[in-house]
């Protein structure tokens, strides 16, 4: 026989206003197994809680019904309260008498009648509740950060500085991501490489950070605290233990290839370091172009290498390790405008370039040593047109969202151009100018004062005429069509998720939105968590943002990870699925329906009418199960049940409403 205590709250006049609390209490007293009923002015207040504790002691109550506000409001409060008594925190049901009765109904009679029903249902259910105990899930004290851009680096540093080992996976030969490619950062115009490369070497030298460059995450399994992750390290053909990064090989290598780092505006060797300050500061061999690997002749690098670190037989290596937490920082790519904008030449014009090209051009370590020249003939462009929102905010051709950073880096490019080519003219076509950020609008104004001519309207066509380009567009402020001659056109293209980021997210059981950005658990309140416990995100993999926001988010994600890894173990949510193996017929319906892959079929030995038999039964992984209960509805025999919301409990609730 259970001993149920019912506590009904006035909530001042909040509930009492439209519910006759005492009448409710009187009915409650008549309900089966209810041994004690108490009403209270403010149950959640300290005196209120104290009297509950007292009552539990005095009347030897073993389960509790709270007739109060919404469980979404105070269920945890009550659980905490009960955990301080002898009553198990899950021997609790909350009847929502405020949000769903007093606040929404005017008629006191009806309100009271409904309140009584809700109490009845709660009593009926709690009567069938069973004590639940959360198990301790051990936490592996190691974090995995996927993506070595500024977001990933920052997150890795913050986590490692807090004393937790980190593995940083980057698919390129060097960490750093896009930031070192940039020349200066708005609005302060400090040199991007100068603030980024120190971070890179800090990451490279950090005793607790294991940098896995030229590597990709192959598979992720497991659950919070215990992710089994397999990482594929692509063949570098170089022994990094002995290589000193002297660079002899690179200077002697006879094969020249377009340099991706300069977006093909300069050449690199087939054995190469991505850029001077690359971390790790050691080369890799580009298997596609290396003569030795493609044609089997050459081998120059091997001959010249003083430490004999070249190994043409090198192969991809797979390593598997366990991690407590995962941070997604897979970053962005620029939208492929060539496919989308035929009217801009579709990529056939050498001097119609993207903002990233411009960054390299204007960069002192770029193809033209920082002199502004145009790719086609290395002439200094005397007039430049900058087009914003190329791909962004254009659902017909590109994406519907705003890429957030373009307005500012557009202004930056205009400023840099006018700064380096004083006699040059610079026109900026824009839809809106969006400059939310510290010192952003000031910077934009400054750029305008530098003489950048802002024209509100989109460019409808760009075509070559002689050795210059004609940009046709509309100036929607003057309402006139304009045609501007430019020696070079810079398209400020929008951001899209980096290729493969969706796949990576999927591996970790995280969803992406329609545009492919990784979805956060809650846009406002849980911006760096994901819906799969133990997986966090930061930077542009979540959506377009600039460097300050990225770094801030990386810090936030890191703090979440630190909070998790600081614990030796976490308490599992005990309200999860549970298999009654004697009922389970092992037809696997639950396995297929589980969104978290938490259920597996296992072969197990049972004693049945005094003889041993092997049967296949479902088995729930407590770490993975999130307690949605989809499996219970798929299970015909009811072998699969959801603790806290059991079949029996719900049936009794229903009956209570109908019959008492």
């Amino acid at each position, binding site marked *: 026989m259970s001993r149920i205590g019912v506590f009904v709250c006035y909530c001042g006049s909040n509930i009492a206003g439209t519910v006759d609390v005492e009448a409710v209490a009187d009915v409650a007293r008549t309900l089966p197994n209810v041994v004690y009923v108490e009403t209270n002015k403010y149950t959640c207040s300290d005196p209120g809680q104290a009297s509950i504790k007292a009552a539990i002691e005095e009347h030897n109550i073993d389960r509790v019904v709270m007739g109060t506000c919404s469980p979404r409001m105070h269920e945890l409060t009550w659980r905490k309260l009960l955990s301080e008594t002898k009553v198990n925190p899950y021997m609790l049901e909350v009847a929502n008498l405020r949000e769903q009765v007093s606040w929404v109904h005017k008629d006191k009679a009806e309100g009271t009648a409904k309140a009584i029903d809700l109490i009845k249902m709660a009593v009926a259910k709690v009567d069938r509740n069973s004590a639940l105990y959360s198990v301790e899930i051990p936490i592996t004290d190691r974090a995995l950060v996927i993506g070595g851009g500024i977001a990933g680096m920052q997150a890795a540093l913050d986590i490692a500085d807090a004393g937790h080992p980190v593995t940083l996976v980057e698919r390129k030969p060097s960490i750093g991501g896009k930031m070192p490619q940039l020349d200066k950062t708005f609005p302060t115009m400090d040199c991007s490489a100068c603030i980024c490369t120190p971070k890179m070497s800090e990451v490279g030298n950090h005793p607790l950070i294991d940098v896995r460059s030229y590597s990709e995450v192959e598979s992720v399994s497991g659950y919070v605290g215990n992710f089994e992750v397999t990482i594929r390290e692509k063949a570098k053909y170089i022994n990094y233990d002995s290589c000193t990064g002297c660079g002899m090989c690179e200077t002697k290598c006879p094969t020249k290839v377009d340099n991706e780092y300069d977006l093909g505006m300069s050449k690199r060797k087939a054995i190469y370091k991505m850029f001077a300050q690359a971390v790790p500061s050691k080369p890799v061999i580009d298997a596609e172009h290396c003569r030795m690997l493609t044609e089997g002749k050459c081998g120059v690098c091997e001959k010249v290498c003083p430490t004999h670190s070249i190994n043409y037989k090198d192969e991809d290596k797979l390593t598997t390790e366990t991690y407590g937490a995962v941070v997604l920082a897979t970053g962005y790519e620029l939208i492929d405008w060539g496919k989308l904008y035929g009217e801009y030449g579709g990529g056939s014009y050498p001097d119609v370039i993207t903002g990233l090209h411009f960054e390299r051009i204007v960069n002192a370590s770029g193809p033209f040593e920082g002199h502004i020249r145009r790719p086609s003939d290395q002439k200094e462009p005397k007039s430049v047109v900058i087009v914003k929102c190329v791909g962004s905010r254009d659902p017909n051709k590109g994406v519907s969202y705003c890429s957030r950073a373009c307005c500012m880096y557009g202004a930056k490019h205009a400023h840099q151009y006018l700064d380096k080519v004083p006699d040059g003219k610079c026109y900026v076509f824009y839809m809106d100018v969006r400059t939310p950020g510290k010192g952003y609008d000031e910077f934009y104004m400054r750029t305008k004062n530098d003489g950048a001519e802002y024209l509100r309207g989109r460019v409808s066509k760009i075509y070559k005429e002689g050795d210059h380009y004609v940009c046709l567009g509309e100036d929607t402020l003057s309402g006139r069509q304009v045609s501007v001659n430019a020696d070079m056109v810079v398209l400020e293209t929008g951001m899209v998720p980096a290729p493969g980021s969706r796949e990576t997210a999927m591996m970790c059981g995280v969803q992406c939105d329609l545009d492919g950005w990784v979805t956060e658990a809650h846009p406002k309140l849980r911006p760096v968590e994901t819906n799969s416990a133990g997986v966090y995100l930061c930077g542009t993999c979540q959506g377009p943002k600039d460097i300050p926001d990225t770094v801030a988010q990386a810090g936030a994600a890191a703090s979440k990870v630190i909070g998790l890894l600081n614990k030796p173990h976490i308490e599992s949510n005990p309200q999860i699925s549970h298999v009654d193996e*004697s*009922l*389970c*017929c*092992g*037809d*696997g*319906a639950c396995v*297929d*329906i589980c969104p978290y892959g938490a259920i597996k*079929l296992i072969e197990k030995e049972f004693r049945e009418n005094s003889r041993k*038999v092997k049967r*296949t039964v479902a088995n729930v992984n407590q770490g993975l199960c999130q307690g949605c209960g989809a499996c219970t509805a*798929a299970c*015909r*025999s*009811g*072998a699969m049940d959801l603790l806290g919301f059991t*079949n*029996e409990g719900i*049936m*009794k609730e229903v*009956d209570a409403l109908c019959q008492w």
Partner: protein
Amino acid sequence: MSDIQDKLRARAKELLESGEVKSFIGWEAGRFENQTTPLIITDAKDTDRIIYNEYCANTVAKYVRDVKPNGKVALCVRGCDSRAVNRMIADLDFVREDVYLIGLPCSGMKDRKTGELFKKCTECRHNNPVVFDEMIGEPAPQMEPAEGRFDVVKKLEDEPRDERDAYFDRIFRKCIRCYACRDVCPCCTCRKCFVDQHRVGWQGKQNNLAENRFYQLTRVMHIADRCIECGECERVCPMNLPLMEFNRKAIMDMNDLFGEFEAGLTDNEPKSALITYELGDVEEFM
């Protein structure tokens, strides 16, 4: 028929003697004229008890679950039996290798009382086995169902709601909840049926309209995505309730909603429509 029966006995003998199978499931003569009952033998001596004639009403596949632990089972399969086998394989009850399927032609079975074909046989759409290891006798000519598969359902749907209500309430009231329909159903593979789990309180013990309705509706929901339309439930119902009128309704809707599907046609069934989904599914609940 009789030569098929002789061949069948001979094969059963070989199989049992060679030890290739441990038991054999078929039919034997019953106590009354033209009556047959399911037969399970493990000894080659008993093979001449086996009979096969136009009165072998029972679909015997479900017995495999009982005798399988003793070793490989030789099973006589007609259309309905073979689909039952596939269905139970899909429910991981046993694997294909556990059974040796002896295919038998079937042109419908007769009711010994009336001498007429059983209703389930007049509606049969797969009278020859869809899967077997060997076939004894030539496949029988494809039977043409008397009326369309869903005609009855459509007819009932067209009747006014309250008449339908009364009609089905009468059926529910008449049900005595003997659970014969469940026991014979090759899709009911639970170790313990929900109706026997009294603590949970799914199914009350009283025999009344409410409880019977609960039982019947739930039964249909439980087999909606897997019913092979063998019609055994109807045949064994002591109250002659037209249970297929429910099963077919569910099958029809599932076909309309999630695409044509017939259960038990292959021994690797696709996942059931109720444990899969598509983003573009019908949306009526916005």
